[in-house]
């Protein structure tokens, strides 16, 4: 099963894609993904209900968040009431250790994204501040990376023994599915996704040319 783990909709300040249009695009272009995860910036969208779209298009649509820390941006899957209470998602300066610990404590899963990106990527902080305990998985393929960034992410992930995921980081419809994550097991819910990430039964995929 292949999921794009990193997408943004019009709920994000810089997102210009409607979720319905993502679904139509995936089907029309026959993209090899079975669903996607909406990771809105600095928030968790607890309101939107995409079940009708899931049924209409036969896609899995899950919701997560992209939070901002002192070691760059981090995708958080499995956001629940406990985590919403523990973290102020609107902050841009979370200590990364707090995010990793809170996610673990609340049964969620945190994975730094675009880790080689200047300022907002985990590895760009490692040279100056050292490695972070508690990181297990990083996004090595990101649809918004500039040339060379993903290669560096792959190299560093291998060096630190991190597992890898991929996501398009799409902000407009036509960018969805450029990168994704292939899971060994079928996933039907956000809890299933968290369990699969915890188990590490997945690999990052990219279709960028």
């Amino acid at each position, binding site marked *: 099963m292949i999921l794009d783990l990193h997408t943004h909709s019009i709920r994000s300040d810089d997102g210009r894609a409607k979720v319905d249009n993502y679904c*139509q*695009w995936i089907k*029309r272009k026959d993209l090899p993904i079975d669903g996607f995860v909406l990771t809105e910036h600095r928030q968790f969208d607890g309101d939107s209900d995409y079940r009708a779209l899931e049924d209409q298009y036969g896609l899995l649509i899950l919701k997560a968040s992209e939070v901002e820390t002192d070691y760059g941006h981090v995708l958080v899957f499995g956001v629940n009431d406990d985590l919403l209470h523990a973290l102020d998602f609107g902050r841009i300066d979370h200590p990364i250790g707090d995010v990793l610990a809170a996610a673990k404590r609340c049964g969620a899963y945190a994975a730094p994204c675009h880790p080689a990106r200047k300022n907002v990527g985990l590895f760009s902080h490692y040279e100056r501040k050292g490695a972070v305990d508690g990181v297990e998985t990083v996004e090595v393929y990101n649809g918004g990376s500039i040339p060379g960034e993903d290669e560096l992410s792959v190299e560093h992930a291998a060096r630190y023994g991190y597992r890898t995921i991929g996501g398009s980081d799409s902000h*407009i*419809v*036509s960018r969805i599915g450029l990168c994704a994550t292939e899971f060994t097991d079928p996933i039907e819910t956000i809890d299933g996704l968290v369990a699969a990430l915890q188990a590490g039964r997945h690999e990052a995929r990219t279709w960028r040319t």
Partner: protein
Amino acid sequence: MRIDEVELGDELPEERPDVSLETVRRFVKAAQMDFPRFTDHDAARAEGLPGAVIPGIMSQGQLAAMIHRWAPGSSILKIDTVFRTPMIVGTPVVCRGAVTGVNDDDTVEIDLTILSEESGATGVLGTAHVRLADS
């Protein structure tokens, strides 16, 4: 171009707009933003830019022109562009568009990009909401 002739996923014909120094100079005069960062490579480098940059609003105008050529007589109800990476004056760029939504009110949504042909970097990303002429 009528609404029933458009399908989600259609791509607009690619365009390579004129981004020569001469044309950019004319544009910035018309736009009353005749600053050296747009018209003088050395001055732009002194400001920390990689060279004289194509004004973002000129790029937006080029994308709008591409839409009008694809669908003559159409009206752009909204265009929204994000300037991501400076595009350098005189360095070829390519404008692309793809239909990402065909709406019940006979309008279409289009994704827009401008890429540097040299580096492949995305300089401008955007969207447009367009009413076709015969709708």
